[in-house]
């Protein structure tokens, strides 16, 4: 509904556009472009989504480490195929030292992405290259870990993790996953 309304240009805007288009200078053409309503190209983050993510993150970032290690523990138990990436760890059980440490690392990346939410792709460039050339994690697993992060957030913050927050975070994690797999091929 909102999308439809933003696509319609009001009559007033059309009249202004017509009047102004009579002045054919480059500056005027650039100005005309700014009057046209912007269309979002894909399922990108709206201003509302970004605000919801930042607000929720402000509430939960204090427990980021716990969230990360719980999500990772869960992933290794519920989706055993993900253990193949951690064969070099001594202990893959929930709450073990390598799992806790890595959960913290992952959430550090998420925190970084929240800070750079206006341009996640360029903000996460280094991590993107790391995942593409060194780690080479199959991108399906980003979805799996994202799901487990959402489950943990629902568990730890049942009142705050409303459907509106859920959709914003789901989109945000999808954007992060996309950024991480950007350099794969």
């Amino acid at each position: 509904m909102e999308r439809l309304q933003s696509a319609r240009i009001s009559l007033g805007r059309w009249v202004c556009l017509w009047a102004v288009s009579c002045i054919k200078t480059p500056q005027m053409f650039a100005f005309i472009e700014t009057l046209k309503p912007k269309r979002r190209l894909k399922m990108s983050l709206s201003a509302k989504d970004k605000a919801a993510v930042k607000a929720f993150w402000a509430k939960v970032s204090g427990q980021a480490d716990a969230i990360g290690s719980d999500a990772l523990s869960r992933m290794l138990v519920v989706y055993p195929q993900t253990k193949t990436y951690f064969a070099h760890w001594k202990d893959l059980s929930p709450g073990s030292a390598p799992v806790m440490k890595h959960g913290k690392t992952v959430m550090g990346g998420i925190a970084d992405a929240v800070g750079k939410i206006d341009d996640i792709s360029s903000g996460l460039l280094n991590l993107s290259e790391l995942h593409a050339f060194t780690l080479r994690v199959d991108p399906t697993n980003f979805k799996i870990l994202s799901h487990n992060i959402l489950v943990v957030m629902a568990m730890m913050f049942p009142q705050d993790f409303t459907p509106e927050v859920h959709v914003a975070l789901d989109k945000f994690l999808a954007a992060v996953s996309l950024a991480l797999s950007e350099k794969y091929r």
Partner: protein
Amino acid sequence: MKQLGLLVTMQPSVKEKNAAMVEWTEQERSIITNIFGNLDYEDVGSKALSRCLIVYPWTQRYFASFGNLYNAEAIKTNPNIAAHGTKVLHGLDRAVKNMDNIKATYAELSVLHSEKLHVDPDNFKLLADCLTIVIAAKLGSAFSPEIQATFQKFLAVVVSALGRQYH
């Protein structure tokens, strides 16, 4: 006579047929019965369905006749959606009571979803994910990784059974 003999030997034995079925341990059975035994169907059902319609808005395509779905508030307070969520959750009861034969139990429902309701089977997974999240929010730290694994396994079997009669 030879052909008959061949016919007989080619049929999978009862043991082989059973081997193709989903295996449930005692612990998994009790986890599933416990979760559903303590469930407030109205609360969880309506929350799961409304969350699905909000988080994955394209699923609203199946509920055009349900009234006001214009924003999250409208969806959350829509009585038709709440009633339907309860109905869907009660539909899972059949699987809980027939865990060894979920595929056959849902054959008819699968045909219904395919032939009459025309639901894209990918949507079953979306609702299953939302249901997992709602149960997680309800159980909190009691929703251990093992319980999550069992619950998701159960839902995956249900989702697979519902998608079986699509042609």
